[in-house]
Structure formats: structure tokens, C-alpha cells
């Protein structure tokens, strides 16, 4: 039994990790084809020289940074409010947003924007993408921060108020500092989800805005190239490092 378990665990870890490792390995391949021809950084150089890719990456960074900031602020405040007293309706809305399939979220937002823009002369673009990202990141932020708040002692804030602090002072000077690791971890999670999104983004981006996942998707659908391997490797390494950092922060007491 024990040996069967260990053997199946090894196989399953290989299944989980080998595809990404192989993908990363061939990003350093000299040749274009899936035959090892020696080490080279040429695909990284090629990615870096591709103006369309660099612009898309800049868009993605800007969208993710803005959406993360907004979702983290709104989500942290929301978690704080819910911690004080539950709101069934808001919790339900957040849960619905969490379980809605991405394609449905994207279509629903697209329908909303089209409907709005019939009356106002606006267009799809960066701003609609950012709004969509704030929306789908919010529930994740609330979830992470609320989980941390539920382990905290409400008496701390009451003690601060007994000693003369106003409620918002107690929040800013007692609760928030205690909450900071969870807030940072939520922000990193939001950043990851935002930076990675293709389905919703491609629907609400309009024709002039392109993000990195959109370019990668187009390249993948055309059959892919080692450049996709190179960009993938950079993204996986950076996001992986961010998530490990977030996990470390969250575990801190």
C-alpha cells in the first residue's frame, strides 16, 4: 500500500510539473523545432525585440497594477465591513461572481458595455478591461482578507476604542496593521489572476487594445513558436515567485 502510494505520487508530480519544465527547457533551445540543438537565448531576444509583444506586456502590467490596487482597496474595506456584520446579499453577489464561468462573465460585461454605449458615445478599451478585472478580482480579495479577519480578536479594536480611539482610528492603527500580510497576499493573488486572464479580457478589450495573454493566445492558436515558450517561462517564474512570496506572507501569524 505504502509503496503503491509513493509510486503514484511520484507519477502524479511528474504529470503536474513535467509539461512546464519541458516547455521552459525548450525556450532555451537553439533551434526552432522540438529537437535539442544547444543552449541559446535567441527566443528571449526575439520576444524582447517584438514591438507588439512589448506593448501588450506593458498593457497587461498597467491593467494588472491598476486593477489590483482598486480591487485590493475595495475588497479589504468590504471584508472589514462584512467582518463587523455579515451581509447575506453582498456575500451572495461575491459568491456568484466567484463561480460564474469566465465566458459568461465576459459576455455579461460585454452585453452591459454595448447596452451602455448605445446611449453614451464611449468605446471598449483599457478602461473597460480594468473595470472587468477589478470586478472579478474583488471576490478573491474579500475571501483572503475575510479569512484572516475571522482569526483575529475583535476585542483588540474594542480595547482601542475604550481607550478613546474613534472607530476609523482603531481600524487604521490596530486592525489594518495586523491585516497587512493578508492584504498583500490578496493583492498578489489579484495581480496574478488579472495578468493571466484571457477569456474575459478578449471580450471586453475592443479592437485596439491587446494584452499579453491575447497575443500569446493568438500565437498558440497558430501553432506556437519558441517565442511563446520564452514568454511563458518568464511569466511562470515571475508569477510563481510572487505567489510563493504571498503564501509566505499569509502564513505569518
Amino acid at each position, binding site marked *: 500500500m505504502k509503496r503503491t502510494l509513493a509510486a503514484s505520487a511520484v507519477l502524479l508530480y511528474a504529470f503536474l510539473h513535467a509539461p512546464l519544465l519541458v516547455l521552459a527547457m525548450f525556450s532555451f533551445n537553439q533551434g526552432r523545432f522540438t529537437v535539442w540543438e544547444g543552449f541559446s537565448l535567441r527566443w528571449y531576444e526575439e520576444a524582447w525585440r517584438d514591438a507588439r509583444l512589448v506593448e501588450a506586456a506593458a498593457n497587461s502590467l498597467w491593467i494588472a497594477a491598476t486593477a489590483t490596487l482598486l480591487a485590493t482597496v475595495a475588497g479589504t474595506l468590504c471584508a472589514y*465591513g462584512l467582518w463587523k456584520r455579515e451581509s447575506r446579499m453582498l456575500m451572495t453577489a461575491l459568491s456568484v461572481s466567484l463561480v460564474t464561468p469566465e465566458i459568461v462573465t465576459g459576455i455579461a460585461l460585454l452585453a452591459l458595455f454595448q447596452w451602455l454605449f448605445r446611449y453614451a458615445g464611449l468605446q471598449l478599451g483599457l478602461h473597460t478591461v480594468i473595470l472587468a478585472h477589478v470586478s472579478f478580482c474583488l471576490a478573491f480579495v474579500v475571501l483572503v482578507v475575510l479569512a484572516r479577519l475571522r482569526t483575529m480578536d475583535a476585542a483588540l479594536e474594542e480595547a482601542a476604542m475604550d481607550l478613546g480611539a474613534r472607530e476609523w482610528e482603531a481600524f487604521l492603527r490596530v486592525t489594518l496593521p495586523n491585516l497587512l500580510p493578508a492584504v498583500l497576499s490578496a493583492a498578489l493573488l489579484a495581480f496574478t489572476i488579472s495578468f493571466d486572464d484571457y477569456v474575459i479580457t478578449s471580450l471586453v478589450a475592443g479592437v485596439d487594445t491587446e494584452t499579453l495573454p491575447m497575443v500569446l493566445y493568438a500565437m498558440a492558436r497558430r501553432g506556437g513558436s519558441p517565442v511563446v515558450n520564452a514568454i511563458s517561462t518568464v511569466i511562470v517564474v515571475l508569477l510563481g515567485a510572487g505567489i510563493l512570496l504571498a503564501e509566505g506572507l499569509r502564513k505569518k501569524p
Partner: protein
Amino acid sequence: MNTRLRAAALAPAAALMIATVGVPFAVLAAYAFQSRGAYGGVVPPWTLENWQRLADPLYLGILLRSFFVAAVSTALCLVMAFPLAMAITRSGRWKNLLLALVMLPFWTSLLIRTYAWMFLLRDTGLINSLLLKAGLINEPLPLLYNWGAVVLGLVYAHLPFMVLPLYAALERQEPHLLEAAADLGARDWQAFWRITLPLAAPGIRAGILLVFIPCLGTYLIPDLLGGGKTILAGTLIQNQFTAARDWPFGAAVSLALMAAVLVLLWLEARRREEPLL
């Protein structure tokens, strides 16, 4: 408690949820009961026609197929995740590292993890290259752009969702139970079927839900790994809003999919003492 502060704290999130969840779904609901315009817009009269079309064998078939593909992927995830979760529970001081290793690919990027399989499976991909080089095959095997590749991608992407709740359920089990069973003469597999498995039931149910729901609404994985030949509910919705330009019908499919997801969640939430989220 100062309710003004609480109201102010909730206001931004509440406004956002109304604007980006409440109103859009209301718009979709209004679309789903209207007709398709000559140029693809949404026009009155109000009608139930879009809902009747859902019963059309063509579309019903796609919806049933989505359920079937999600069910197969979920079953495979369960079969693979169970030994993995058991091994992690019994790994002593390696536990945290092994858990992190399950989580890591899950947090990286769905698009990239799916592309990794394209890279392995395509005609010029690694598997075919190696097999050709070894002389085992003369022409590339058609590994990509079929249902097998789609299910493989779904299992790969959602395996961690199954491992975590299983691990949480197994971790809570008292190891003495298995020792007692062994003392009383139970074999390993008897103890597994009659103790480990029944006690893991809540974790199994949570895992099934966490895998089945995203699989049901998947769009990206069948689009990339199925190469447009594998139509599921997500593909159908996307198609109505782009190529087919039939927004009312697309809205009806979206709402039907959403209803399926919410009913599944509701059924599970009713059985649990603690909230799902």
C-alpha cells in the same frame, strides 16, 4: 457599532457588484427573452423562442456533452487526486513542500499550462518528435485537437482543486482508526474502502464541485486543445456573441449554464453545516 463606517466600507464593493454582476445579468436576462435583429442586435418582441431552442437536439446535445465531458474529467481527477492526497497526508515533514508543489502549477497561468500541452502533443511536438526519432512511428500521431486532448487539459488544469479538499478531509482522520482496523484483522484495502473512503466523503463532494463547475463552463481549454472541433457550452456561448451574432440565444445559453452551476452549488450548500466560501 458605528454603522456609518460599515456602510462606507461596504459601499465601493457593493456598487461594483451591482454594476458588474447585478446589472449585466439583468441585461442578459432581458436579452434572453427578446429576438435577434436583422443585423445581429437585440430587438423586441418579447419571446420564449430562445429557451425553446435550447431543447433543439443540436443544442441539447452540446449541453449534455458539456456535462459528460465535465463528469469524465472530474472522475479522472478524483481517481488521480486520491492517492496523491493520501501520500501527502502520510509524508510527515515533507507535507508543506508537497502541498506547495501541488499548488504551484495551479497558480501560474491557465493559458500557459494549456499551451504546454499543445507543445507536447502537436504533430511537431515533443512526444511525436521523440517517437519519430526512436523509429517507433513513421508519421506523427494525431494527439492534439481531439476530445482526449481536451479531457487531458481539463484534468491537468483542475487536479489541484481536487487534491486540496481531499487532503483537508484526510488530514482530519484519526490514524488510530486504521490501526484499530488492522488489529481487528482488516486488510489495507478493506480499511481503505470501509474507513478512509467513507470518512473522506465531505472532501470528495467538495472536490467534485470544485472541479465539475469550472469544467462545465470551460472555454479556453477546448478551444486550444480541441482546435475548434470540440464544441462545448462555453464555445457555443462565445460563438453566439461573435460569429453567429445571435445575442438573445447566447444570453439564454449563458443563463442556462449559470443556473446549472448555481443549482449544483445550492444542493451542496444545503448539506453542509459550514458555509462553502
